[in-house]
């Protein structure tokens, strides 16, 4: 049964496609081109240097450290931020008095300004901050825990900050999806005597599976691209020895300011692109397999 002319879908897709080509794909192709050059800010002569930027990258200890940080970041954020916001969405889905207030309040961290987030979190995590003072008060520790100066603890602190900011963001993505879960299925399951937990697992989760896949992709991309949380907690310095830098922080350093190295920054961007493709492909495969 023919229900549409052949060009109808293209008419619908074209504006969005054109936009992405102009503002996203084309600049990125340029980035790829520049990664084989020694382009500098403010120009001067741009020479083709072949694979030099890429070979330099392989020998750059900072890049290795940043890559490791990004991977650890993703490994921890992915499960947390795929599941916790869903639970939160289920929690605020029910119509209760004052629920609109809670829903809005949970979204606050998403739009809090970097300056305030930095102030609040350093106040929490500082050697004499709230957490250390409480723990000392309760005699759990004798020495303050160096949340903001130890290489690994800094990473963990930044991850907590990411999760805290991400909760509300992904919560509303899930909320929209929950609205599409069939109410009659819930009712049927309830009549069969399924408890809340079982209903969640047998009705809600399958109902939002596509959204879970989408969220997991968004989370892994965001985690590999982490910048502001680490920047805020380390005062822009990347921690002692620069061991708590992410790839994006390095890209910003080489691409930023007047003394950057665009060629190198572009090569790092290409690396970041390749690295972010990996979880995407893996997740897409898993998603396809579970659909069959």
């Amino acid at each position, binding site marked *: 049964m023919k229900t549409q002319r052949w060009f109808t879908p293209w008419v*619908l897709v074209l504006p969005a*496609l054109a936009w992405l080509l102009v503002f996203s794909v084309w600049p*990125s192709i340029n980035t790829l081109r520049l990664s084989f050059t020694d382009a500098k800010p403010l120009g001067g002569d741009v020479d083709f240097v072949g694979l030099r930027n890429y070979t330099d990258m392989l020998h750059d200890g900072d890049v290795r450290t940043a890559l490791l940080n990004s991977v650890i970041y993703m490994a921890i954020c992915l499960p947390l931020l795929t599941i916790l916001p869903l639970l939160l969405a289920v929690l605020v889905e029910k119509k209760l008095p004052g629920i609109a207030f*809670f829903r809005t309040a949970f979204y606050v*961290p998403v739009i*809090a300004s970097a300056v305030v987030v930095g102030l609040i979190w350093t106040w929490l995590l500082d050697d004499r901050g709230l957490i250390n003072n409480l723990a000392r008060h309760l005699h759990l520790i004798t020495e303050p825990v160096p949340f903001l100066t130890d290489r690994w603890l800094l990473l963990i602190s930044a991850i907590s900050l990411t999760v805290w900011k991400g909760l509300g963001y992904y919560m509303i993505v899930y909320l929209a999806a929950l609205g599409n879960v069939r109410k009659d299925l819930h009712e049927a399951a309830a009549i069969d005597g399924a408890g809340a937990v079982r209903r969640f697992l047998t009705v809600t989760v399958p109902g939002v599976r*596509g959204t879970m896949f989408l969220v997991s992709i968004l989370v892994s991309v965001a985690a590999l691209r982490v910048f502001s949380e680490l920047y805020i907690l380390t005062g822009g310095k990347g921690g002692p020895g620069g061991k708590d830098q992410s790839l994006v922080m390095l890209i910003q350093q080489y691409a930023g300011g007047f003394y950057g190295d665009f060629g190198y920054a572009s090569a790092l961007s290409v690396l970041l692109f390749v690295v972010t493709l990996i979880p995407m492909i893996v997740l897409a495969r898993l998603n396809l397999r579970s659909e069959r």
Partner: protein
Amino acid sequence: MKTLRYLLLILVLAITVGPFLWELSTSLKGAGEDIYTTTPSFVPHQPTLNNYAKVADAIPVWRYIGNSLVVAALTVGGNILFATTAGYAIARLRFRGRGLVLGLFLSTLVLPGEVTIVSQYVTVRDFGLADTLVGVALPGMVAALNVLLMYNAFRALPRELDEAAIVDGATVPQRLLRVSLPAVRGTLAVVAIFAFIAAWDDFLWPLIVLTSPEKYTLTVGLQYLSGTFTQDQRLIAAGTMIAFIPIAILFSALQRYFFKGVEEGGVKG
């Protein structure tokens, strides 16, 4: 059960609402109060609205809000329109190259945008839109993420929806507008919120595009509260609160749409 729910809600509230309270209390603190003490006090002892009045005196807040609203309206409009049409076509229509198009949208999600901002500026300038609000809004009018959100929402709709309409002889636009769209209102609200916030909170891009002070958006304008020789934290906090209010209003207004899902969407359970 209800008590447990509220307990959980309050627990999460305590974790999330801190920065908001801190910002609010800083903006209400009078000139005689510490705002940088070792242990911040959340309750202003001399509450005052002076800081808000001072912000309005220092910078033309209303004009900046107007400019930001223009940019946000363009961004929200563009995303709702184009993300809906593209998302619908990929999710509900069969055509050759569909997989390729979907893959392209997915991959732009991971293109590193950190390094392309100024080439975007050059593009906008070549369109003759430098130093205009349209130029500020332009690149953000379609975001791959929003296309994917719409695609995901349309895909979740049951097949029967379309089939009934096809039998009735409805055209594609009719099916989109009358059948599918009402069923994805929740996601539309999410797209609107994401687009609004992206436009409303953006700082660097408008800063680069705009040069005339009268065209500045709110985020750029609020930066003027911290000058070269002076930074009054109370004013900055008041400015941040002013920027926050429209987002809170929008969110409160739209959140009820998340819960009007399929039951009104044409298929009676």
